[in-house]
């Protein structure tokens, strides 16, 4: 039996990132994968002449849902119940896990098959099932790779993005036989062969399992229809073959009507995998007699979402449709991979969603996440639901800082207070510039400063620092009356201020 690992104990981002950056295999895998998906996305988005209108519509629909969430959820519950499903409400992960484990245990099963689902990752459902003696088999190919490799997901859509195909082959050869049908001994790293090995391995589990667990991409409020979007068809196997189906759904997944799906089903696959349309879109509404699962449960989870909803700036993160376009374009994520974020939600969306779901000011690793960005804005540019991730990052940075304002101020707090004082009046800045100019003359060599002690070594370990010039701009302006008299009024355009004078 497999024991699922969790992100508990991941060091803060700068430390985890430093380790990840040293892994050249990871760097190469991540670069290849993110650039491939990035380019595919750009191509298929380029085909749409109404992409911006679709983004507007998607953001508007989600904002309406967020503003009227209570009404839509009750409507969805009524429709689901009418259609023969049982609706459960879970305030947090523990409650959701208790409900799901309880349903599975009532059917006396020792295994379940799973459709790829971020909600169940978020609540660490597999850990809870394993504790109850129930094996949770991941059936999404990439999730299977992660599970067999005793690994952690590093991407919300392609959780094994950090692995290349020869690593996948090794994992399959080594692990498949321990938990089911083994891979053929002559398995190569040809993608079709790897997929074939996974197909045979999973088929056995699909045919046997009595209970399936899924998430959902959308929950249509007026009909109670759940929708799962996927590429492989393994999700559909889980959704149709077992007798019992339990779907764990975040409350923000509700959309008002089927018509709204038109917008999201255009945006999601293009933003996610760079496909015009994903191969499998499954929808189901409660129980259909004699067809598919005859016992259908829907577990609606809050798990911090209503707290996010209460944050006027941060609530836009609940628009997220888990497409992963933000991480695919993120220059930070591309270099560190997903594990450094210490959460099932990595990358830019994770850097805002994780701290909001967990709460800031509690642990160092969570508080480091809003700072794991250069604020370049590439994520906001591609987000199909227009989440202004840089805006939320900056907002959360303030919340993190504010949560630590009691007690003895740290070095950064002291520096920021000092800078605030200095920059509050120009005479103080001028004084600082005089000191900097003197420092430049002492420490500078050919206009550059090579090595400085900590904490400034964080800059100079890998980068030179320009030596401050003898004369600041404001002193030059005063001395020359804005360049109207005296020397130095005409720069030669050769960037000479950066070389020795």
């Amino acid at each position, binding site marked *: 039996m497999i024991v699922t690992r969790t992100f508990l104990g991941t060091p803060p981002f700068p430390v985890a990132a430093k380790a990840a950056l040293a892994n050249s295999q990871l760097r190469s895998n991540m670069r290849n994968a993110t650039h491939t998906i990035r380019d595919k996305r750009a191509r298929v988005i380029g085909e749409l002449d109404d992409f911006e209108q679709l983004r507007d519509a998607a953001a508007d629909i989600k904002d309406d849902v967020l503003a009227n969430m209570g009404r839509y959820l009750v409507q969805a519950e009524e429709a689901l119940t009418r259609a023969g499903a049982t609706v459960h409400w879970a305030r947090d992960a523990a409650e959701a896990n208790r409900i799901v484990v309880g349903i599975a245990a009532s059917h006396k099963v020792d295994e379940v098959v799973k459709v790829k689902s971020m909600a169940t990752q978020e609540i660490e459902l597999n850990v809870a099932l394993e504790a109850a003696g129930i094996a949770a088999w991941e059936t999404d190919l990439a999730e299977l790779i992660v599970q067999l490799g005793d690994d952690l997901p590093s991407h919300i859509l392609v959780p094994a993005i950090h692995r290349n195909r020869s690593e996948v082959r090794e994992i399959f050869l080594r692990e498949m036989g321990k938990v089911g049908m083994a891979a053929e001994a002559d398995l190569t790293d040809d993608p079709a062969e790897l997929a074939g090995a996974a197909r045979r391995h999973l088929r056995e589990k699909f045919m046997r399992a009595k209970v399936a667990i899924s998430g959902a991409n959308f929950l249509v409020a007026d009909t109670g229809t759940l929708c799962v979007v996927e590429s492989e068809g393994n999700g559909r196997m889980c959704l149709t073959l077992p007798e019992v189906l339990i779907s764990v759904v975040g409350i923000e997944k509700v959309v008002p009507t089927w018509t709204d799906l038109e917008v999201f089903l255009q945006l999601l696959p293009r933003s996610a995998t760079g496909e015009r349309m994903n191969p499998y879109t499954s929808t189901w509404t409660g129980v259909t007699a004699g067809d598919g699962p005859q016992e259908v449960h829907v577990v609606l989870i809050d798990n911090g979402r209503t707290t996010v909803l209460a944050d006027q700036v941060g609530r836009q993160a609940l628009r997220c449709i888990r497409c992963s376009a933000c991480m695919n374009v993120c220059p930070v994520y591309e270099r560190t991979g997903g594990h450094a974020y210490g959460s099932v939600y990595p990358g830019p969306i994770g850097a805002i969603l994780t701290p909001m779901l967990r709460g800031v000011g509690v642990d160092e690793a969570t508080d480091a996440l809003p700072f794991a960005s250069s604020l370049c804005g590439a994520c906001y540019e591609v987000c199909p639901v227009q989440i202004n991730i840089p805006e939320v990052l900056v907002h959360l940075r303030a919340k993190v800082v504010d949560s630590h304002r009691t007690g003895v101020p740290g070095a950064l707090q002291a520096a920021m207070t000092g800078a*605030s004082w200095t920059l509050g009046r120009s005479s103080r*800045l001028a004084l*600082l510039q005089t000191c900097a100019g003197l420092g430049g003359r002492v420490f500078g060599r050919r206009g550059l400063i090579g090595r400085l002690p900590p904490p400034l070594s964080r800059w100079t370990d*890998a980068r030179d620092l320009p030596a401050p010039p003898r004369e600041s701009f404001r002193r030059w302006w005063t001395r020359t009356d804005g360049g109207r008299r005296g020397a130095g009024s005409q720069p030669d355009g050769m*960037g000479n*201020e950066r070389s020795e004078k």
Partner: protein
Amino acid sequence: MKVALFVTCLNDTMFPATGQATVALLRRLGVDVDFPKAQTCCGQMHVNSGYVPEAIPVVRAFVEAFAGYDAVVTPSGSCAASARHQHKIVAQRSGDPTLISGVQGLSPRVYELSEFLVDLLGVVDVGAYFPHRVTLHPSCHSTRLLGVGNRCERLLGAVRGITMVDLPEAEECCGFGGTFSMKNPDVSVAMGADKARHVRESGAEVLVAGDNSCLMHIKGLLTRQRAGVRVMHLAEILAAQEVAA
């Protein structure tokens, strides 16, 4: 039109030649630009690091220094974006109605240099001469926060003697990111190293950008590598003219 130069704290302290070039360029184009000496900084470092209350006196100093001008021009996309998008957050936090209305009035009148030249002055050919191979790093804040589009390319394209060469993956962030460069130095350097590699691959003699913050970071890596590529601010190239023999 009463025009003020917001030189930025970084240029004021570290790169005065950029400010001097901006003044020379604007004068040549007939703009009698003023330098209000009460100016200090846009406050971006504080806001982006989470220290919003500490940014209040800085933003107040900004508003007081520039309130009397029709337009404020700054040789920094990042600082222009800060004034346009972040000052209102700081003003709101202060709860001071005078500061809130001051920011409301001033923010839309702050222009990054290329915007000021192309949109307000309506010039693309600024009469510069710069006979070198040059590549442009379009900084993230100019591109994505301000939306300056191809204004820098158009201005540089009109410079006599210049040869513009493409920068591979130009739109990708250089990794500076303000205090990000100190809080996450390893990631920052990894991003910057790729940018520096692309600069070398471009074959350019000179790397130009509209932000000295990005350039300080990229140059810090290039000089460590003894790469032999010079970095210059956009204003310095646009100010450059043929030296009379």
